[in-house]
């Protein structure tokens, strides 16, 4: 189910989000083209994470429309957007602490016959084939992200950087069409930042569409094909990082905040 070929994969049109009179997001329109990494930057409190949450359905939009692959998803619950392939990660670590690393990946996998009350009651024989297939798939991801040795450890015991990787791998288990990443590098050791950058670039090379909120402009410059800039709940510019740097008012807004 793909949108028209010349349409961006994800289109948000004039979205608003109010919190008891506070306009966290005030009429933002953004487009995320297929197969690219799009950045969303801005000073603290600009409303970037709120935009991401509204796109993912974590928060409902107060008004505006969101179209994903040609389908209006404005009213869809978060879990249904995830099932369509629009999958988010969180700014704060959000691993399932008392599940192992491998289980954190397995739990996200769709199409497991044992993942319903009915399937569970039918017993292991009914779902074991799905489970074994998904274990293989999850282990392949763990190898790719260099975390095989940790598969049986509780995710809650991992470092901040490892939790980021777990969350990205967990999202990938859904075979997403579009990833929404909320500051995937924040609070992470510089060496791991480089790792995550490498992984994101390789995912892009495989054709995955990504929208990421990020603070670190150097990373945004390296990773993002195009960038949207927000300040105080509004969009104040868009384009490539190079073109944005030439716009005086945007640099001011970002630096002054």
């Amino acid at each position, binding site marked *: 189910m793909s949108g028209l070929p010349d349409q961006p994969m994800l289109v948000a049109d004039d979205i608003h989000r109010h919190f008891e009179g506070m306009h966290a997001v005030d009429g933002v329109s953004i487009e995320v083209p297929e197969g690219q990494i799009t950045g969303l930057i801005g000073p603290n409190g600009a409303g970037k994470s709120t935009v991401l949450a509204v796109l993912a359905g974590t928060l409902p939009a107060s008004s505006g429309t969101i179209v994903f692959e040609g389908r209006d998803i404005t009213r869809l619950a978060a879990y249904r957007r995830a099932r369509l392939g629009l999958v988010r990660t969180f700014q704060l670590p959000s691993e399932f602490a008392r599940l*192992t690393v491998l289980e954190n990946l397995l739990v996200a996998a769709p199409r497991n016959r044992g993942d319903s009350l009915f399937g569970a009651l039918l017993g292991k024989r009914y779902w074991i084939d799905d489970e074994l297939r998904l274990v293989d798939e999850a282990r392949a991801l763990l190898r790719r992200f260099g975390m095989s040795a940790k598969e049986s450890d509780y995710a809650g015991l991992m470092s901040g950087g490892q939790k980021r990787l777990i969350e990205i791998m967990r999202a990938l288990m859904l075979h997403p069409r579009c990833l929404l990443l909320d500051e995937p590098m924040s609070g992470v050791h510089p060496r791991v930042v480089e790792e995550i950058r490498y992984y994101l670039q390789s995912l892009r090379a495989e054709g995955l569409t990504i929208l990421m909120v990020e603070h670190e402009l150097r990373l945004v410059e390296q990773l993002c094909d195009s960038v949207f800039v927000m300040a105080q709940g509004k969009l104040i510019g868009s384009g490539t990082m190079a073109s944005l740097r030439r716009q005086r008012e945007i640099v001011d807004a970002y630096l002054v905040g």
Partner: protein
Amino acid sequence: MNTYYAANLLIYAGVDIIACLALNLQFGVSGIVNFSFIVFQAVGAYTAAVLSLPPDHTPGFDYQIYVGGYQLPFPIPWLGGAIAGGLLAVPVGLVVLRKLRSDYQAIALLVLSVITNQVITNARPFLNGAAGLASVPPPLSSQLDPNTERYQYLYIALTAVCVVLVFAVVNRIVNSPYGRSLRAMRERELAAAAIGKNPVALKMTVFIVGGVIAGLSGAILVGFIQLWAPSVWLYPETIILFAAVIVGGRGNNIGAILGALLVPVGFEEVTRVLNTNNLNFGPPGLLSALQWVAIGLLIIGFLWFRPEGVRPEPRRVFAGSPDTVEVELVRPA
């Protein structure tokens, strides 16, 4: 120790084990703090009672008033009790589990438990009010004499069958991919929604399944003790079951069984032994009051020193994991 006493002990143990397995599924595995758990047991008991009692104008039963009175044969009252527990879970779950944050859910359910008890106590025409229902016919009492030893053994066997059945059901749920989704929801609900889990559907399902099992436990109990009144399902009864699940080990079915044997059964036994051996001290009722103090201390002590319980939730290790030789996931023969 006579047969009747042994039967009494075993059947209470069976009922408590079934209840703790259900509560472990809701609280230990899925994180739903169901402070109205005992209401679901009570609705199962009342339903089983009015399904097996004759109409309340029947001579010998006309000292009480109640709805129903259908005189249905076993096992219909037990099945009815289980179904009633599940049915009650639907409206309660829809009101409490959809919008409220989990701590408010716990408060709402606690309040529900208190209100329900008050209503049943004071609305006498419904289920005979505070006096409750008595002379509830035990299962198969038209064919067999309930006062024989053989009947006691039969009742123990029936209870045991239910324990095994419930254990099999909750084990299959907990150890399946579905159980993993429930644990993920318990750990972090927003993140679970972000990977495509529907938290409301998961919670409702667990609430209903737990309600069915709780209802069954009530039906078993009322058939044996033959009476049921608001005083046996006051809200602190739920706290005892929570203590059992916490002591046994949240998320572990074997732990729930151990907890049921240690807390509700164990405490009843200790107080009984102390009472019957004239080791009583202080004013009458002191021991049973101290029992509540002990249960409070037990919960606090375990949460402080051993929050994972006697039998902690198992860490799931899959066959072929690089850092271990444990094998859990093998194709059944």
